[in-house]
């Protein structure tokens, strides 16, 4: 048996009073894809940071290629062949793609020379290898989020690492980009490297992983092979979910609703050049959940931004409750009863330094605080109400948003918009990076809201979620709405076909 690439024994790490890791053991062998599973807050990110040298563990033993390592730094981890693709691209926005790749791959000797041409060539070949169509001299701040993710992957590949850690690499990738990534992962495996793969999408894990380790509350619960030697599946989704949450989750998606009511939103040929949205016509009725599917970059988030007035429409008509409206700013959208739970929770959804009650009241200032005077009692009551209604785990309405886990932050973000009592709720990737338990809770909440007569537009790249939650599924491609699928027509195949079909 070969030496494992990575062996962690009884690793522990605390931040102040919080014990993030309480003795985690983990092994990665060459030529293996090892999935790491766990709810948010289970300790996956901390574990990764221990392995990449970003955090120093308080106790336990870390062995890399059979050698015990102490005082690991990011530089040293790199030298020892560990590369990591983080969830949030850790790139330099002001620098070019080739320089980004260069800075990550070259040794950080201060007086070392910079070979610009070699950098460019290397970047070019790496980008080509993962099939990304990005010019190496483009500044990173001109790239879209998935493109940045691809650059990250190129960095990890380029480092020639024997151990590659991928933290939700597909979160913002399009389907075709995902396929390329899977090919890269398989390639790595074939070349004898080890891959630690983290994802909330279980189907990816079944498609890729050889073994699975489940973390819960800072402890490693178990490590299991995905397939037997003969290639049969040895694990079921239900089993995995149960291991992660430690309890039974009965139905993954709540049952769908009754027939929808009146038309709430009606779009006719709405276009926005700046936002890459062209001639979209769409109707959403009260009590209906409309799933908005498509590849990333297909214009879904952009359409939401048009509706919310962040990038106002150039042409076309928007009717809300039968009235023509022109939405020029988020302020106006809120006044019209439109709510938008954004995709990027940490940047747009929740202000991490502010108490959650203040976060929840932000969109209802005029309603909650008539005459612009703050009323602290009313605000606190609002906070308490939603903490209870949505089951937010926090010590109270004064808890800063940043002290909550991702799923709970998402609930705070949702609470802010429910407080406005909107007529139209737009959810953008509502469960991205949310653990399984919180995910099904959020699904239940969304369904309840629809039951109460809210019109819901849900953008999601998670196909099972779109299928499970939506009453009707609209597919976008290249800024246009290309299909509207309902009932038995709505299948994973038909959605993907619509999303991918060439003109």
């Amino acid at each position, binding site marked *: 048996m070969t030496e494992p690439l990575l062996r962690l024994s009884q690793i522990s790490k605390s931040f102040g009073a919080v014990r993030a890791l309480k003795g985690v053991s983990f092994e990665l062998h060459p030529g293996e894809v090892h999935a790491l599973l766990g709810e948010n807050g289970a300790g996956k990110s901390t574990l990764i940071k221990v392995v990449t040298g970003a955090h120093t563990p308080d106790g336990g033993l870390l062995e890399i290629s059979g050698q015990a390592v102490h005082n690991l730094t990011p530089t040293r981890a790199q030298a020892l062949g560990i590369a990591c693709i983080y969830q949030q691209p850790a790139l330099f926005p*002001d620098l070019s793609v080739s320089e980004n790749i260069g800075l990550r791959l070259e040794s950080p000797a201060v007086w070392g020379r910079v070979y610009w041409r070699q950098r460019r060539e290397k970047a070019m070949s790496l980008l080509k290898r993962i099939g990304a169509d990005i010019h190496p001299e483009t500044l990173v701040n001109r790239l879209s989020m998935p493109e940045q993710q691809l650059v990250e992957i190129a960095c990890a590949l380029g480092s020639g690492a024997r151990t590659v850690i991928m933290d939700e690499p597909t979160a913002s990738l399009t389907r075709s980009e995902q396929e390329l990534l899977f090919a890269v992962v398989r390639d790595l495996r074939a070349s004898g490297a080890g891959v630690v793969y983290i994802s909330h999408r279980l189907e990816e894990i079944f498609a890729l992983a050889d073994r699975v380790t489940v973390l819960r509350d800072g402890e490693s619960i178990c490590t299991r092979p995905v397939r037997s030697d003969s290639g049969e599946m040895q694990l079921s989704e239900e089993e995995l979910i149960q291991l992660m949450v430690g309890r039974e989750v009965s139905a993954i998606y709540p049952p769908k609703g009754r027939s929808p009511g009146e038309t709430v939103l009606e779009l006719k040929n709405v276009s926005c050049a700046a936002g890459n949205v062209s001639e979209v016509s769409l109707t959403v009725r009260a009590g209906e959940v409309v799933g908005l599917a498509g590849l990333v970059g297909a214009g879904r988030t952009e359409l939401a931004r048009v509706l919310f007035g962040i990038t106002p429409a150039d042409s076309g008509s928007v009717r809300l409750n039968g009235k023509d409206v022109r939405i020029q700013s988020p302020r106006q959208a809120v006044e019209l009863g439109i709510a938008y739970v954004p995709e990027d929770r940490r940047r747009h959804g929740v202000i991490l330094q502010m108490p959650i009650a203040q976060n929840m009241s932000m969109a209802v200032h005029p309603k909650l605080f008539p005459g612009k005077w703050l009323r602290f009692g009313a605000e606190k009551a609002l906070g308490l109400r939603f903490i209870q209604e949505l089951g937010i785990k926090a010590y109270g309405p004064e808890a800063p948003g940043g002290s909550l886990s991702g799923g709970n932050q998402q609930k705070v973000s949702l609470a802010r918009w429910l407080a406005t009592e909107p007529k139209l709720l737009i959810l953008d990737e509502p469960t991205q990076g949310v653990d399984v338990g919180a995910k099904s809770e959020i699904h239940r909440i969304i369904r309840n809201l629809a039951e109460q007569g809210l019109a819901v537009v849900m953008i999601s790249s998670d196909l099972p979620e779109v299928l499970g939650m939506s009453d009707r599924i609209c597919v976008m491609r290249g800024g246009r709405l290309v299909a509207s699928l309902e009932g038995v027509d709505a299948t994973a195949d038909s959605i993907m076909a619509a999303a991918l079909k060439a003109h």
Partner: protein
Amino acid sequence: MNRYFRELSVAAALALLLALLAVFAPHFYQPQPLLSRLTAQMPTLVLTLGMTMVMLTRQIDISVGSQFGLCAVVAGLVSAGGHSLALSLAAALGAGALMGAINGWLVAWMGLPSIVVSLATMVTWAEALRLFQQGKFINLPAGVQWFGLSQTAGQVALILLGLSLLAGLAFLLKNRAGGRHLYAVGSDSEAARLSGIHPQKVTFGVFVAMGLLVGVAAVFNLVQSPQVDPKCGTGLELKAVAAAVVGGVAVNGGRGNVWGAFVGLLLLATINPALTFLHVEAYWEKAIQGLVILLAVVADGLRSKRQSP
């Protein structure tokens, strides 16, 4: 071309101003006064180089004027004590590095905002110097001025030194890993950390480098005249920041280069003599300086607004 739009447009503005002078005040181009004017800008140039580095890492240092005065007095006292110029350079470098290290320590290791740290050290150094020196000039021995060379040779030497410092720093920032680390840290310090760069060390190093450059600048100032004025640093921090900003160095880090800052400095430094040559009253100077700074940033703002959605 597009990447250097800012530098080129500032250079164009400078060219325009110079052309204006060529038409309306041709005697601006007499060689000896031109040489003197350029020489006089060398200390500020050196400070601007340091400020560019500091701003590239997303920091700012407004204590450089006070540091400059202190270094100049230290170097002056060493020289006045009859020691060699090398020794006074060493003393100035030492004093500068020490003050830079204090700023750097507070900013990098204590995580304090640089604008406030340097505001505090600016006041502290300036008042300490006032208490110590009481505004007295320091008379220097004969050999110090122009390094003991003839005047023209000394001026040429000084300009060459300044420009080679500029070129050297430009080279380091472009072609040495350490230089790129400044951009990396200024662009995103967390990403830099994950790339194995130590942002604290880089930040600390940049402030120390700034201090060392202040020492160099003080000596560049020292050799230009037979006396040291302890007030010589007053207001230099704003000149250096303004030059860097006009030259396209971004206050929030990661963007800009020393050539741009150099052109920015030349533009700002030409305004004052231009007013004299065009016989515009002196009391317009500050207003025009402010207008140039605003025009530079507004042009930049309009341009980036047009480009980004």
